[in-house]
């Protein structure tokens, strides 16, 4: 087995999972300046959606994602209306605790409704792998990797090639100037939040064949996703993808060379080093970082 290639491949594929979550998070961060601690819970809801559609009606998660994503998108619109919108412009602490509160609420709601049981989706491709020479690549992880890249690319194209995408970028750069130019800032916020959490929901459904779902599953991923967002540069979609893949590979390489317990230490070391050398992150634009809160 070409060990080095296998380690890097495994790291890249794990990074793909992180990327799906981080892309949405960086959008919310970059545009709304909201630290969305509930992001992992939207992923959890996506996983439960995929799980139940598989358990009750035998629908493959790769199909149920088309139901899960619109549902989470609608939930995102609702959450924006009820919570997020009211925190824009409030002190940062209010924003942090509003989304943290939402996170705890959603976790406990899941716990009450679905209990703490560990639920796992098993499909025909679970446990299977593509083989390239001596290197093996998990089928469900390759799929999630592909979906992450396609979604990130689509989002990047949307932001750069559509009128609404440019409006989102304008709001990210300067909310007041964008409003003066006639952009409906409130609507941009609402759509951005809903698109981003729908991405987390998509990740949940796509990852369901890989990871078991419990009410706290989002917590496992969201802290790493925050590191990725800052590392890649606030608001930068390509930055989030590259940083996610980097973190995945660092975890895998250090985990093999030194041990699993050191993997997290290693990527935080990378995180700190990048921030010291390049405070705006790998792909962050200084102009896009201007804080526009109260």
């Amino acid at each position, binding site marked *: 087995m070409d*060990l080095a290639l*296998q380690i890097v491949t*495994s*790291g890249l594929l*794990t990074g793909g*999972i992180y990327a799906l979550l981080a892309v949405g998070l960086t959008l919310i961060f970059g545009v709304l*300046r909201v*630290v969305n*601690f509930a992001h992992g819970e939207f992923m959890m809801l996506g996983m439960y959606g995929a799980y139940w559609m598989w*358990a*009750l009606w*035998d629908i493959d998660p790769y199909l149920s994602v088309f139901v899960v994503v619109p549902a989470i998108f609608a939930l995102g619109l609702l959450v924006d209306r009820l919570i997020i919108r009211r925190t824009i412009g409030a002190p*940062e602490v209010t*924003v*942090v605790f509003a989304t*943290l509160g939402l996170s705890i609420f959603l976790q406990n709601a899941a*716990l009450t409704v679905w*209990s*703490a*049981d*560990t*639920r*796992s*989706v*098993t*499909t*025909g491709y*679970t*446990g*299977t*792998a593509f083989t390239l020479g001596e290197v093996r690549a*998990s089928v469900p992880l390759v799929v999630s990797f592909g979906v992450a890249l396609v979604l990130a690319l689509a989002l990047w194209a949307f932001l750069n090639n559509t009128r609404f995408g440019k409006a989102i970028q304008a709001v990210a750069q300067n909310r007041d100037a964008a409003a003066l130019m006639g952009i409906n800032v409130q609507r941009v916020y609402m759509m951005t939040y809903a698109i981003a959490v729908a991405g987390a929901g998509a990740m949940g459904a796509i990852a369901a064949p890989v*990871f*078991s779902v*419990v009410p*706290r*599953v989002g*917590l*496992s*991923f969201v*802290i*790493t996703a925050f590191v990725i967002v*800052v590392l890649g540069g606030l608001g930068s979609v390509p930055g989030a993808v590259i940083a996610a893949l980097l973190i995945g590979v660092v*975890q*895998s390489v*250090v*985990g*093999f060379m030194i*041990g*699993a*317990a050191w*993997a*997290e230490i290693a990527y935080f070391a990378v995180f700190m080093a990048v*921030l010291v050398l390049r*405070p*705006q992150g790998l792909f962050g634009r*200084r102009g896009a*970082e*201007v*804080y526009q809160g109260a």
Partner: protein
Amino acid sequence: MRPITRHALLLVLLGLFAFALVACEADDAAEEVDDPDDDAPAENGVDDDTDDQVRIGAMFPQSGDLAFEATEALQGVEVAVELFNEDGGLDGTPVELVDADAPDPEAGTSAVRQLVEEDEVDVIVGTYASAIASAAVPAAQRLDTLYLETTAFAAGITEGPDNVLRTTISSRALGAYAVEFIGSGLADELGVDADEMRVAMVYSDDEFGTSIAEAALDALEDSPVELVLDESYDAATVSDFSSTLLRIDEEDADALIHVSQISDGILFWRQAQELDIEIPAAIGAGGGYGQSDFAEPLGDASDGIFNVVPPTSGSIDTDALSQDAQDLLGRMQDRLEEEGYAQGVYTDWGFMGTWVFLNEVLPNAESTSTEDLLAAAQEVDVAAEDSITGFGFEFAGPDHETPGQNLRADPVVQQWQDLDLSVVFPEELAVADTINVPLPPWAERDEIEEPEDD
């Protein structure tokens, strides 16, 4: 760094800190127990001499992540108390059961105070979760109340406190037994000399995982078996086992000891299959490996995986039990059915531990003071065949290194066979022969079957 960037970073750090606070709730609770302000002994509020009715406080997680299996244990306790009262209770007076929800260590210490100071219980029975028990036992100790642990394994529970009776096994025994099995029964099955056996140790870095792993690592030092990998991980955040699996493969391990919860156990084996990593034998130590939620998603891939646990009525040959024990098992099962309760492994341990306390300790104690109850416990002598769980009861004395520990709570090795756990070691308790030793190559295993829908 530009000030505005610092602003954004501060926001992230503040948020991460808040998140960490939530995640570390358990640690804070454990520290709270050691708060010197709390050191002054509180009023017990119980007058042992004048209160005729004995009150038992049952403290288990009834909400939160741990509620499902902990509720099984609580139901076992409830049924034990009901049957004891049906038999006449304590000298004709029924024992009263008061329950309290303890979903985490912080709630556990609060529940102890509530049960002792407000509900005036004489004894606390718990707890299912090692972390909760580890926080609650010292709290009960300060309130001079006996703590009966029926289901939590952490070694520390009976390595220090002097107010504990633990009816179930200590993690120290679990870890040591896993090593003993590898060096004897498993080595024979694999056809490898014990001094040539290579073992990888992989465990979650929580209290449950580390306490078993430390015991296993200690036992490995005195064993001819060679430790080739010692790897811990955070079960709450792990998302990739590929590097660990590749290390196991590189080290050419003959056997794996894995202490995990359910989700990480499933992820580990799915990734082993994807990476085509061959591990000749794997031994789980309680936790996730003993749960059907672990085996069902793996399907046939779970066939042959071992698990070290204390036995239960479901995993032993109950025909070999004494007639009294068989009758007791029947009574318990009838009552569970009447109440609409399912019988799980924790039901058995919760029931039998409480039953022994009610019938063998309480009637022989001069009062319900910790001292008198512990003294009465010294006289307990229940043989394995007289217990529905298949292990007997004899409590270590105050001078023993593990005071209050049930010295007859010996583990057994079970093996997943066709989605059921069967005892395969030691021979005298085995109900089935081992299968899949060594575990067959992935290509030769049957395709994973989809479990039944919920």
